[in-house]
């Protein structure tokens, strides 16, 4: 029972982590908090739903199209909403992201309707792992989330654009002086973060069998919480933060009551931040 709840929590937590990593990449490179990330995730989820539920494509295709759509959306948002305002300080871009989140959500209501849309099941079976029942889908999601994190690490550490991103994250003016095309790096960073959000959206849609325009709200909040919890600029921290929130939520359901799930999860987070204001893995690591 305990182990089942841990598996439930890890699955959910890995999805929070993907959203949280997006916040980290955006904050790490651009020094910007975005409130539209949850809605980008929702748009990714809807594209995944269209691929899977309407056009009956295979789920990897749905995942890829959700990520691609979120990538394009992220790239467009960065170019049209952030680039012109880069010199204006923190507030205008922050307000723009709030506006964007409202626009995207209401647009989805207009286009798709406010109601829940059914996403077909993928891998409906359960297997026994070490004596506990685990659904195959949970394993697939955990595996995919892990694979995406590994791919991200490879991208950041073993490619030229990855090196440019890390350089920009450390000091974008110095990077610019060294010949890094900072505009391009910002754009790719934002698009990459959005694509990870889109991937989380598609997987959440498949995992819970439903997508709806308001789904970005809680996801954005939990992902942002996981990101701060982990230390704001640390990718491993965001992963750890997401997983801890997910597991604490499910253990609360098991040992306290289902109504207290968010109360306890956020209380644990507040407590740790009081003791360690820089977050779990803040300061020590940066974008690594």
């Amino acid at each position, binding site marked *: *029972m305990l182990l*089942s*709840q841990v598996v*439930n*929590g890890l*699955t*959910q937590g890995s999805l929070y982590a993907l959203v949280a990593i997006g916040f980290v990449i955006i904050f790490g490179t651009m020094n910007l908090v975005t409130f539209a990330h949850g809605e980008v995730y929702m748009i990714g989820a809807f594209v995944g739903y269209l691929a899977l539920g309407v056009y009956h494509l295979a789920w990897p295709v749905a995942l890829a199209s959700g990520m691609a759509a979120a990538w394009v959306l992220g790239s467009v948002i960065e170019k049209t909403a952030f680039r012109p305002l880069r010199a204006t300080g923190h507030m205008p871009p922050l307000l723009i992201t709030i506006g964007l989140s409202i626009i995207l959500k209401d647009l989805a209501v207009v286009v798709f309707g*406010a*109601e*829940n849309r*059914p996403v*077909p*099941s993928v891998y*409906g*079976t*359960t297997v026994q792992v070490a004596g506990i*029942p685990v*659904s195959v*889908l949970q394993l697939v999601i955990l595996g995919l989330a892990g694979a995406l994190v590994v791919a991200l690490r490879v991208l950041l550490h073993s490619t030229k654009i990855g090196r440019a991103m890390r350089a920009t994250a450390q000091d974008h003016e110095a990077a610019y002086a060294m010949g890094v095309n900072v505009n391009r790096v910002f754009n790719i960073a934002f698009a990459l973060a959005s694509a990870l959000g889109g991937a989380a959206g598609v997987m*959440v849609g498949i995992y*819970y*069998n*439903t997508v709806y325009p*308001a*789904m970005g*709200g*809680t996801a954005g909040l939990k992902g942002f919480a996981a990101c701060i919890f982990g230390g704001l600029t640390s990718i491993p921290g965001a992963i750890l933060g997401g997983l801890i929130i997910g597991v604490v*939520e*499910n253990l609360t*359901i*098991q040992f306290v*009551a*289902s*109504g207290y*799930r*968010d109360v306890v999860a956020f209380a644990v987070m507040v407590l740790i931040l009081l003791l360690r204001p820089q977050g779990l893995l803040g300061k020590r690591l940066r974008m690594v």
Partner: protein
Amino acid sequence: MLGPTLRTMTRAARMATVSGPERMKLVLRLLAQVLLLAAVVLTARVPPVWSVDPIHIGLSAPLTGNFAEYGQLFQKAIDLGVEWINASGGVQGRPIVMIVGDSRADPKEAAALAQKFTSDKRIVAEIGDFSSTACLAAQPIYDRAGMVQLSPTASHPGFAPGSPWSFGIVGTQAGEGPFMARYAVQKLGKKRIAVLHINNDWGIVSKDLFIKAAREMGADVIAVESYFETDTDFTGVLTKLRGQKPELLYIPSFYNEAALINKQRERLGWTDVTMMGPGSLYSPKLLEIGGDSVNGLYTSAAFFPKDPQPEVQKFVKGFEAKYKATPNMFAAVAYDAVNLLAFVMAKSGTDHKAIRDELAKVRDYPGVTGKITFTERRDVVKEYRQLVIRNGDFTLYDK
């Protein structure tokens, strides 16, 4: 109507000869007149064949906004009802004409509409609104003016008793909870029961009434868990409930969450439990989202389109022919509301007080949502049909 039309036309002609701000003013005035004309033409849709005065009934419903789906169903069902009433000679030889207002499910708008309706001398009674909240906001205005406020859907137990002019025909939770408990404990013989409910006013009242009745019938309620309206993850709470080994899991929730609960239950491989929920689950959406996982789920409905009773079949066939869609509970209660008013006015005439008194006397009116008999609180105790989902469709459970 000819006068204003001519004047508008001459204005339009004059506009060609002036320019500048003068012209702007004229354009605006012209626009205002066109709108006014349009409003007059649109609201006065009296069937041309009638020579006598029509009877006007107000309809306050959310035609736009979050609950637009329901308001539009109200309007469709009522249009169909009025069409049939007028085709068969109207009420005391007079046709019924609806005056429709959009409340957007906003209590403020519902109250404003109530002001408008009660100050309109033509309107003899009102149908609406959709939500209990909007109904309660408008209630004092209808109460002061002395006009019948007949809500098709307000299920708040405090609504109808709140004013002698207010009537509710959808039934309240006080009837449904015990009905579902009898279904679970006495019909299906389940003794170990767990409850997973939505944590809002409705969910709490719903689960309390069910649990109280189930305990009185000798069942053992072994676990009660809740979730919030925005939750989509139920794997944790289902894993916990599964550990308690209930025979039946009762889920007072709405169809979206009920579908997700069943999907996730199925994926966890938890199959040795009977699922049941109140009539709020009865929707094609439950089947659409829930798929195979909702097979074997027990629920209830006051209105069931496959019910063989002739009045139900007449309504369902007529609605399908006119709108190419099967009516649901919301359409059915609205249809009942307008027919009930017509039935009452055929006896009482159109005096406001006479309509109210006659309505309060209604006993065993054969509606498509079951027999309507008002209690002294002016709400009704609904009859429900026992349903079970078999092969991906709702079927009557008659044992």
